[in-house]
């Protein structure tokens, strides 16, 4: 009897471990934009996000804080050292927990440079994260959430997945109601994307500025009239972890341009 139960469990376990079907074919967000916005994104002059890349490049070698160290003092040439950073975040750090790229930069500034914290969505932080993300252009997303069962990252992933499928807000919509069930269809004047993180941070014309993926996620919360989680909250990071896993293998092309 016990043996029978064990066999049943073994047979069932893979079903539980199986991840929800991902949109196929995996399509980057730029494909759902107007031809004008897409053209802007891939024109290295017209893409306004590259202004943040330029600023980030300057900040990279600028000493900061009590240690008077710049990012370059430890990490050297970002073109080499940061080549895959954006493709591998959010990730788990033993002393810091699960962090996305912005969170990692904040931690580095405070702990290693001993400089004042860079607030979320501040121009300095966005410039640095966009500069770092840009180095990973053409890389493919390599999430590590799935490969580390029972770790903090795994827990964050599970939380993100739960949030992704949880109906929220006055409109009572879950992420998957749009981005899995209805991508490619028209919502007012927009085409619904598959909801991938590969082009973020991105310049959003509606914002008239560049913003992080967390800000974009909050905009979706606002869209379904749900309570907005604060920037940097575990919920947003968890969603980023889930989205990275969901977009595994997708080519990165930051900074994007969105309507």
């Amino acid at each position, binding site marked *: 009897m016990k043996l029978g139960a064990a066999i049943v469990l073994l047979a069932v376990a893979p079903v539980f471990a199986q991840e929800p079907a991902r949109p196929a074919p995996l399509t980057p967000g730029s494909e759902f934009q107007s031809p004008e916005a897409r053209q802007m994104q891939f024109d290295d*002059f*017209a893409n*306004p996000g*590259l*202004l943040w890349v*330029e*600023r980030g490049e300057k900040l990279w070698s600028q000493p900061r804080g009590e240690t008077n160290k710049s990012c370059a003092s430890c990490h050297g040439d970002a073109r080499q050292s940061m080549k895959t950073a954006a493709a591998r975040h959010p990730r788990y750090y033993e002393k810091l927990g699960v962090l996305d790229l912005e969170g990692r930069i904040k931690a580095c500034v405070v702990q290693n440079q001993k400089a004042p914290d860079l607030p979320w969505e501040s121009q300095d932080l966005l410039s640095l994260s966009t500069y770092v993300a840009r180095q990973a252009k053409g890389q493919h997303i390599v999430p590590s959430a799935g490969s580390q069962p029972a770790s903090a990252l795994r827990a964050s992933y599970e939380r993100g997945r739960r949030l992704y499928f949880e109906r929220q807000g006055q409109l009572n919509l879950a992420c998957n109601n749009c981005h899995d069930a209805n991508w490619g269809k028209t919502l007012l004047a927009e085409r619904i994307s598959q909801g991938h993180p590969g082009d973020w941070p991105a*310049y959003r*014309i509606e914002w*008239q*500025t560049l913003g992080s993926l967390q800000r974009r996620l909050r905009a979706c919360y606002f869209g379904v009239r749900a309570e907005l989680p604060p920037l940097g909250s575990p919920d947003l990071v968890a969603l980023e972890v889930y989205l990275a896993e969901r977009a595994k293998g997708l080519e990165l092309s930051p900074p994007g341009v969105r309507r």
Partner: protein
Amino acid sequence: MMLGKLQVPPSVKKGEPFEIRVLVQHPMETGYRRDLNGMSIPMHIVDKLVCRVGGREILRAELGTGIAANPYLAFYATASESGEVEVEWSDNRGDTGRVTARFTVA
């Protein structure tokens, strides 16, 4: 000093029009918006922009609140000899920016 970008073809044909592209990083705050506390956000816009080719002014623009953030301008010019394109701008707070690019007439 504000951040901006200027794009000019490195080599142009004598007398033939070539494209000059300018991108300026600026919030272009209209002065009509309010922040989350209901306080008016003061106007902050680039209001003057000048382009010179070989020292000669070829374009002068007065930008207003209707221009989007990070203004992008593209226009054409001709040249008979090699030289420098210079773009200068200033905003209503007195901040200025300047970018230059060289080209040769082939």
